């Protein structure tokens, strides 16, 4: 048992570094992917048929393609088209794309769930379409979307572990490389699992708390 603790303490700095990379990757992908998702949600409802179709195709591609395939396409496939991205950049592109596609569906459904009466009340007050979106639809829709978006963010964080396959030194790949030198795979992966949990569990609690707070004013 003592041996295990000592091992873990030995490995911890490297794994915590890796955790940092994982968190960074998830945060950057969300920062790019969420606005993308909002844009896609709005464009899917565009009155212009062509815009609608193209957006729909992008969304369906993002949702339908396994993330690993996206990752490989971008990291190994794009260089053959003359575009070379570093591992972190490739991972950000793939995960943001995937985030945009999934969150656009969440956001679209949430905007649709805003009661029609509120939009009509805004219209009856003479508030134009942009004002209605900015002051009513968006804030109301986001409140509806928050729980699902938080759930997605936690899932995305776990998905970052896939990028060990393109040799980005995030948490899982650190654990793997330690495993391959010490042959203590089970032990090091267990520690990695604990570190993942240290992020996902509090995030889940935060999500629940936020949901409660946001819902407070709503009937």
């Amino acid at each position, binding site marked *: 048992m003592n041996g295990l603790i000592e091992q873990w303490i030995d490995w911890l700095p490297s794994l915590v570094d890796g955790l940092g990379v994982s968190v960074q990757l998830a945060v950057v992908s969300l920062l790019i992917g969420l606005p993308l998702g909002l844009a896609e949600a709005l464009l899917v409802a565009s009155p212009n048929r062509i815009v609608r179709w193209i957006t729909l195709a992008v969304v369906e591609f993002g949702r339908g393609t396994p993330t690993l395939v996206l990752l490989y396409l971008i990291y190994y496939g794009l260089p053959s088209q003359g575009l070379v991205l570093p591992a972190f950049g490739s991972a950000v592109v793939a995960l943001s794309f995937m985030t945009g596609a999934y969150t656009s569906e969440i956001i679209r459904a949430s905007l649709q769930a805003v009661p029609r009466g509120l939009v009509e*009340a805004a219209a009856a007050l003479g508030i134009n379409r942009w004002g209605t979106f900015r002051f009513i639809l968006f804030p109301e829709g986001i409140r509806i979307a928050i729980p699902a978006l938080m759930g997605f963010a936690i899932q995305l964080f776990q998905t970052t572990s896939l990028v060990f396959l393109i040799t980005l030194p995030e948490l899982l790949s650190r654990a793997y490389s330690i495993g391959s030198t010490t042959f203590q795979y089970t032990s090091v992966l267990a520690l990695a699992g604990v570190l993942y949990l240290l992020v996902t569990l509090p995030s889940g609690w935060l999500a629940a708390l936020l949901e409660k707070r946001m819902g*407070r004013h*709503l009937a």
Partner: protein
Amino acid sequence: MISVANLKKSYGDHTVLDGVSIEIQRGEVVAMIGPSGAGKSTLLRCLNLLERPDSGRITIGDTVVDLPAKIPVRTLETLRKTAGMVFQSFNLFPHLSVLRNVSLAQEYVLGRDAKAAHQRSMELLERVGLADKAGSYPARLSGGQQQRIAIARALAMEPEVMLFDEPTSALDPELGLDVLAVMRELAASGMTMVVVTHEIHFAQDVSDRVVMMADGGIIEQGDPAQVLSSPANPRTQRFLKAVIDR
């Protein structure tokens, strides 16, 4: 103040307004009654173009809407500024405080600065008896309070006409009284009002004219006492009997 000429509206092959015409004078209070599905809400919602009529002409104040031609955005804006609306389900913005509910459109649509809007909102909240609720959120308030705030919100745009679609139907009778009191006061102040209602007492006491709608048209109208106590049309007789018996 309001003039509607030969207004038609269908959903698919279901005709909801079958060539409705009506003139309403400035300061007049019109109570609109009729069975469910008669087209009362549709007519009201056509007046501020929440619903787009198929054909006909609507004049409110100086604004004229001729259909089926395209409605310019400016026309839409002035029409909605001229006519305030109160809904059966209040439709307050749940994420905004009472004060913000009343101030938002003053700032965004009328371009009032925050201070002027705040001041006007407080005056109106005072008028509907809810100044002490300025900082509350709608979900904290009773239905009757929410509806009075919805009235204040509509009044904040300084409309020349107020449209009410069954403002007390979602309320317990007792809570409805406060709302009706506010509407009485508003009527007494000279506001032009069109009120769709099942409140026969309100129609009797407050309105200048009762309009009975059925099957997409106005089948009878006139002095409240006459229409409500000795209606000429058998359809109106049946309807009023049903309302009173309930």
